[in-house]
C-alpha cells in the first residue's frame, strides 16, 4: 500500500517566500473563485466566513497557487498582539534590531496575508489592519516611523467563524465593513462525497456513509454540540478507514472524540457511526 503524497510540499523558506507549487485540491461550491479573483484585481480585502473545517484555508492556498503569489498564514490566538503582526525590536549581542512581523513581510513582498480566525486575536490588532484594508492600503510601522505602502500584488484575507455565538468573539462593524465577504458552508452531500474521496482515496460507499454521519452530527448543533463534524474530520476518518482501520474505530477517533468529551454525546456519536455503515 502506498501513501498518497501530502497535498502540497512544504519547504523551510522565509515566510514570505512560500509559493505553493503543486495545485492544492479544491472543489468550488459556487462562484467563490471568480469573486476572489475580481476582488484581488481590484485590491479589495477579503473576509471568509464559515464553520471550522469547511475549506477556508484550503481555498486560500488554492487561490495563492492560482494567482501565483506567496502565502503568509498567521493563525491568530488570544495573545496575538499588533506587534506580533507588524514587527518589533529584538536585542542581539550588541544592538537592537528591527524584525518585521509576518504582516509587514507580506506587504513588502506583495504576498497574500491570511489571518486565520481573526476574532481570536487581541483587539489592538484591528488597528493595524484598518489602514491596510481600505483604499489607503498602508501599514504604519510606528516604532520605526515608517509607513509601508502595499504593492498591488498584496492581498489581505481574514477568516472568521460566525458560529461561536459569543458576544466577545465578534468582529466590529468598523472592521467587517472593509471587506468583501465570502460565505462558506459545508458542501452539498454529493460534493462533500467527492471531496472525501479525492482527499482520502476511499470508495463511494464509505464516503457516502461519512457524509450521512456528518449530517447527523450537524443536526445536533445546539443540542450538545457546538459544531457538527467538519469536512476535514470526515477526511481524517476516511483516511484511517482506507488504511484498514475499522469504520467504527476510525469514526470514534477521528470524529466522536474530536467533537465532544461528554460521555453521553460520545456514546450517541458512536451509535451514529455504527448505524451509518
Amino acid at each position, binding site marked *: 500500500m502506498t501513501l498518497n503524497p501530502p497535498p502540497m510540499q512544504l519547504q523551510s523558506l522565509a515566510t514570505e517566500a512560500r509559493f505553493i507549487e503543486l495545485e492544492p485540491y479544491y472543489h468550488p461550491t459556487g462562484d467563490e473563485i471568480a469573486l476572489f479573483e475580481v476582488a484581488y484585481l481590484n485590491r479589495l480585502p477579503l473576509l471568509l466566513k464559515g464553520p471550522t473545517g469547511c475549506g477556508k484555508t484550503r481555498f486560500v492556498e488554492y487561490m495563492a497557487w492560482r494567482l501565483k503569489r506567496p502565502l503568509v498564514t498567521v493563525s491568530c490566538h488570544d495573545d496575538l*498582539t*499588533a*506587534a*506580533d503582526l507588524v514587527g*518589533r*525590536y529584538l*536585542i542581539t*549581542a*550588541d544592538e*537592537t534590531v528591527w524584525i518585521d512581523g509576518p504582516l509587514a513581510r507580506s506587504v513588502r513582498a506583495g504576498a497574500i496575508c491570511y489571518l486565520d480566525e481573526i476574532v481570536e486575536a487581541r483587539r489592538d490588532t484591528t488597528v493595524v489592519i484598518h489602514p491596510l484594508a481600505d483604499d489607503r492600503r498602508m501599514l504604519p510601522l510606528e516604532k520605526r516611523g515608517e509607513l509601508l505602502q502595499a504593492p498591488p500584488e498584496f492581498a489581505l484575507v481574514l477568516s472568521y467563524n460566525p458560529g461561536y*455565538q*459569543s*458576544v*466577545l468573539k465578534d468582529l466590529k462593524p468598523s472592521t467587517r465593513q472593509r471587506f468583501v465577504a465570502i460565505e462558506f458552508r459545508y458542501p452539498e452531500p454529493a460534493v462533500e462525497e467527492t471531496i472525501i474521496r479525492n482527499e482520502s482515496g476511499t470508495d463511494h460507499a464509505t464516503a457516502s*456513509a461519512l457524509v*450521512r454521519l456528518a*449530517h*447527523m*452530527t450537524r*443536526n*445536533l448543533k445546539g*443540542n*450538545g454540540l457546538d459544531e457538527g463534524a467538519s469536512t476535514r474530520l470526515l477526511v481524517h476518518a476516511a483516511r484511517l478507514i482506507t488504511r484498514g482501520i475499522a469504520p467504527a474505530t476510525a469514526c470514534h477517533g477521528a470524529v466522536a472524540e474530536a467533537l465532544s468529551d461528554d460521555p*453521553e*454525546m460520545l*456514546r*450517541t456519536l458512536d*451509535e*451514529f457511526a*455504527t*448505524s*451509518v*455503515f
Partner: protein
Amino acid sequence: MPKTVDAPALQQQLEYLLGPVLSARRSAAPLAQAIATLDLARQAFVLHWIEVIDRSNYELAYRFAAAAPAALEVLDETAARAWLLEALDRYDREGLHSASSLLQDHAAFGTAVDHAVACNFEECAGVLRLFVRGLGGRTLQVEAGPRVSTDTDTLFLPARIAPMPSKNENFNIFKGLSTLLWAQNRFGSHHHDLASACAAYPEPGHAADLLMHLEMLRLTPRIAALVPGVARLLENWHGNPDPRCLRLQQPGATTCDSLVLLEQLYGRLEPPRLPWRIHLHTQASARREARVERERGELAALLAQLLESQRGPGAGEDDDAGRFSIDHHRGAGDGTNYTLRLDGQPLQAPPAVGERIESLLQDLGEIPDDYLQAQAGPDGNAADTAGTAPQEGSRGFHYDEWDCQRRHYRRSWCTLREIEIKPGNSAFVDATLARYRPQIEGLKRSFEVLRGEDRRLRRQHHGDDLDLDAVIDARIGVRNGQEMPERLFTRRQKAERDLAALFMVDMSGSTKGWINEAEREALVMLCEALEVLGDRYAIYGFSGVTRQRCEIYPIKRFSEAYNTAVRARIAGITPRDYTRMGAAIRHLCTLLSAVDARTRLLVTLSDGKPDDYSDHYRGEYGIEDTRQALLEAHHAGIRPFCITIDHEARDYLPHLYGPVSWTLVDQVEKLPLKVAEIYRRLTG
C-alpha cells in the same frame, strides 16, 4: 426477637397508612396477611413505599399494597423499584387508571430478569434523544410510555428492555424502535388516520399489527438509505418479506400502498413477532391536525414579517405583489428539499420560517399554496410569534422536580411562566438614591477598584515593547562581563472580569412590608454599583402557587440596560404567593447557562425556606428539591450563592448551598447596604 412483623401488627400499620381508602367492605386484613408472608426486608420495602405513594394518592398506595406481595415473589429489589417508579411516573402523567394497571401487571418488568443485561429507558434516554435528533427532521420528544407508539410529537418507548442476553443487544432494540417510530414521522405514515382505518376491521388490534408490519417493510429501505446499520437490525426482526409485500420496498411506496395491502392481506398474512409490539397511537391524527393548524398560523405571521422586512411596511396589501411560492425538489431518498420564492425570486428563508416549512412538509408532504399567504397574527403584530430563545410554548416551560422520597425525578412536574411585572412608581428609586447618596458614592468607589484595568508587566520574556530599565541594566551587565539577561520586555496584561451574575429575588407573600422595601432598595443600590463595574447581570423575581403556577418575573434581562423601565420594574416588585424554589432555580440556570462567561453566579435573595401551598413542598421535600436544583446548577458550571435574612437559615442553608456559599444579614434594614457589598467580596 421475631424475624418478621406479624399480621395483626401489620394490619394496624396499614390501617393507619391507608385509612382514607379503607371502608367496611375493604379492610386491611387481607393485605396484612399477604405482606406478613414476606421476609423482614421486603416488608420494610413495602411499608416504606406505601408511605411514599400515600403522598401522591391513597388509592394507588392501596393497590400497590395489594399487588406487592405477588410482585416481590418474582421481582428483586432493583426491578421492583423500577416497576414502582414507572407506576408513579405514569400516575403523574396519565392518572390513577394507567398506574394501577401497571401495578397489576408486574410481569412486564421481567420475571427473573438479569439486571446486568437489561436496558432501562432512564439510563439511555439521553443517548436516544440525541440519536433521534441526529436523524433529522422535526424535533421529536422521546419518552417512556405504556405502549410503543408515536403520537407524531413524541416517541413512546418501553421503560425497560430485557429479552436479549446482552445489554448491547437490548439497547439495539431501543435504537431500532426509536428509528422506526422516527421514520413513521419522517416518511409520512401518519398522513392518514391509521387508527380509524384499522377500526373498520373486525379485529382492529390485529389490523393494526399487520399495518405496522407493512409500514415497517415500507420504511426499512428508507432507513437503510440513512442508517443501514439500523436497517439490518429491522430486517432481522421482520425476516424475509412475503412476496406479496415486495412492492412496499419500491422507492415510491407510500402509506396508501400499505393500506391497500392491509385490505388484501387481512386474515391472510400473519405478521412476524417482533421483539416489541408496536402500537398505533389513537391521538396521532388529532395531534398532527392541531400542529398543522398551529404552524400554518405561525408561518403566515412569519411570512408577513418577512415580507415587511423585504418590502417595507404596508407591503402585501397590494394583491399583485408579495406572493410567496415554494418549489419542491424530491431529494434522493431523504426527505424533501425546497426553495422559497417571493414573486418568483428565490429567497433565503430565515431559520424560524424554515423550521415551520420543514415541519409542515413533513406533515403534509408538500405545502399547499394557500398556506403561503402572509398574514399578520391575530393581534395584527407578526413580530410576536418569533420570540427569543428559549421559546416559551403557550403552556409555559416544564421542569422536572426531585422527589426525595422516591429518590427520583417527577418528570415535567412544574409549569413555569415568565410574567411581566407591572411597573411601579419610579419616585421610589429616586427616593432611595437620595436617601443613600453617600453610601452609593462609597460603593461606587469600592467597585471601581475592582474594575479590570490594563496592567503593564515589567521584565518579561516576551512583550510588545522594550523595558528600558531592564535594557539599561542589561547593557551595564554586559559591559561588566555578565551574561545577557533575557527578561527585557514589557507586556500589557488586561485583567478582564469575565463574569455574569443573575440575581433571583424572593417575591413570596412573606416579604410583605419592610422586607420588600429593603429588597427593592438593595436592588437599586446593587444596580448602581454594578453599572460601575460593567459585569453582566440580570435580575428576576420568583413566586407562585402550586406546581402548576410557578412564576418568574423578569426585572432586568442580561440583554437589557439599566434604564428607566428597569427602575420602574424594581419599584413595582410586590409580594406575591409562595416560593417553590426548585423550578425557579432550574429556569434561571437555563437562562444563565446561555450567557458566555467564565464565571456564572446565581445569587438568591431570600427570606426563608422554600415553601409552597401544596404537594408537601414545605419541609424536607422542598429543601431536597431545591438542593437537587442547586446541584444541577453546580454541574452546569454555575456558582450559587444565597443572601438571606432568615435567622433560622443556619439550620438548612448549609445543606442547600454548602458551608460557605451563603450569608445571613441579620437586620433587615441593613440589607440595602449589604447586598452590593457581599457581591463585591464575592467577586473581588
